[in-house]
């Protein structure tokens, strides 16, 4: 069965996930299933492993143990099949400071196979969607943290990913920015989301499941 065509298989399926950093265990025995189109909210104190979980799902970290499947593919065995299908918004905006916002989006677009007029149209659309069309030609280094976050959100959804992994998506955003972001990374038909946030009230209404991680890397659903 080809990835992306398995509509019955959950978007995410984890069993006994463990991640160690040397002798320290960041995640210990995490397991859950998330159906396609659902939203999982991940809560927990600092150091509980929220970002580690997100980075494993994004294929940026290898699990130390357990089974992880995302969009019908096994991590890490079939990681290469997942590239281009995941939108990741981490603590870093993944933008080159010496390039403009537009140049950064063009860079990411080309790496995801979006070129020419279609690619430029998509970039224009997203720059307007995040309210950055007038600041798109300035170097990223000259932008405020909130503007960089808006560009990072645009970068995250540029290639229309099936799975969104969002670490503190409202970070540094003003009220207008949060509204614009919601239109791009909010609930959407068929798109699965995992959101890490320290603001449960903001996202709980959208969440189909809530996973609370504890210090030591164990998790519980509520």
């Amino acid at each position, binding site marked *: 069965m080809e990835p992306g065509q398995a509509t019955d298989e959950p978007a995410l399926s984890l069993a006994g996930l463990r991640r160690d950093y040397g002798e320290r265990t960041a995640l210990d025995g995490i397991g859950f299933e998330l159906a396609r189109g659902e939203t999982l909210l991940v809560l927990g104190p600092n150091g509980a492993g929220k970002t580690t979980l997100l980075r494993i799902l994004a294929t940026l970290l290898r699990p130390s143990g357990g089974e992880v499947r995302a969009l019908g593919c096994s991590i890490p065995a079939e990681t290469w099949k997942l590239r*281009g299908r995941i939108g990741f918004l981490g603590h*870093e905006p993944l*933008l*080159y*400071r010496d*390039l403009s916002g537009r140049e950064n989006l063009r860079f990411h677009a080309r*790496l995801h*196979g979006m070129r020419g007029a279609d690619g430029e149209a998509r970039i224009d659309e997203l720059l307007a969607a995040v309210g950055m069309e007038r600041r798109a030609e300035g170097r990223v280094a000259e932008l405020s943290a909130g503007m960089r976050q808006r560009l990072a959100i645009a970068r995250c959804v540029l290639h229309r990913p099936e799975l969104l992994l969002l670490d503190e998506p409202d970070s540094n955003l003003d009220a207008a920015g949060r509204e614009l972001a919601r239109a791009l990374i909010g609930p959407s038909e068929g798109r699965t989301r995992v959101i890490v946030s320290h603001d449960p009230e903001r996202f709980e209404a959208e969440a189909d499941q809530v996973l609370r991680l504890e210090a030591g890397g164990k998790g519980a659903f509520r």
Partner: protein
Amino acid sequence: MTPSRIAFATILAKDLRAELRTLQSLPAMALFATTTFVIFRFGLDRTSLSGSLASGVLWATLLFAALLGVNRLFVSEREEGGFDAIRLAPIDRSALFAAKATALFVYLMVLELVVVPIFALFFLGSAAALLPLALVLLLANLGIAATGTLISSMAVHSRARDLLGPLVLLPLVVPLMIAATGASEPLLALGGPGYHRFGTWLAVLSLYDLIFLLVGYAVFDFLLED
């Protein structure tokens, strides 16, 4: 999967554009090399060099100037999340190795366009050796670019990256330097360029380049894994 040639061109264009805007590597490399030639000029108290001495001065200077470029090669990827961006993209990650090696090769060519004439002005009686020397420079640059990119990508994640890079790279380029100086020595002889064993040394350089380009292509994907 995005074709490798598109990924390669995209990453290379990004690097060259950033370097043109910030000039973080090339001016430092050129200034270092020029200053070193000046130091040799007055330190050796010679108005002309030839043979093995000229070859040694030239290649020692170029190698240490190249280290400045090698150390900065992956800085933006480390500090600005470029590694994550590239690992998230549906591309063959060897395109990153090819693009970075090509960028470093370009920096070395530009460096030598500036400083080799300065070297000739300071130490050589004529420019007759420069044309055949260009072939040696080309092949040596390829080897430094391949090896430097490989080592830089490993060292960039270390806290002692500025020390680790040169410590690991310098022993690896010893064969390259032996071949480059061996090829250059007769070219820079007092009576005009000679070609004693020139072909042999070019073959050694080519073999070194081939080996490290293949090694880099083969292992680079694993180096990006966390």
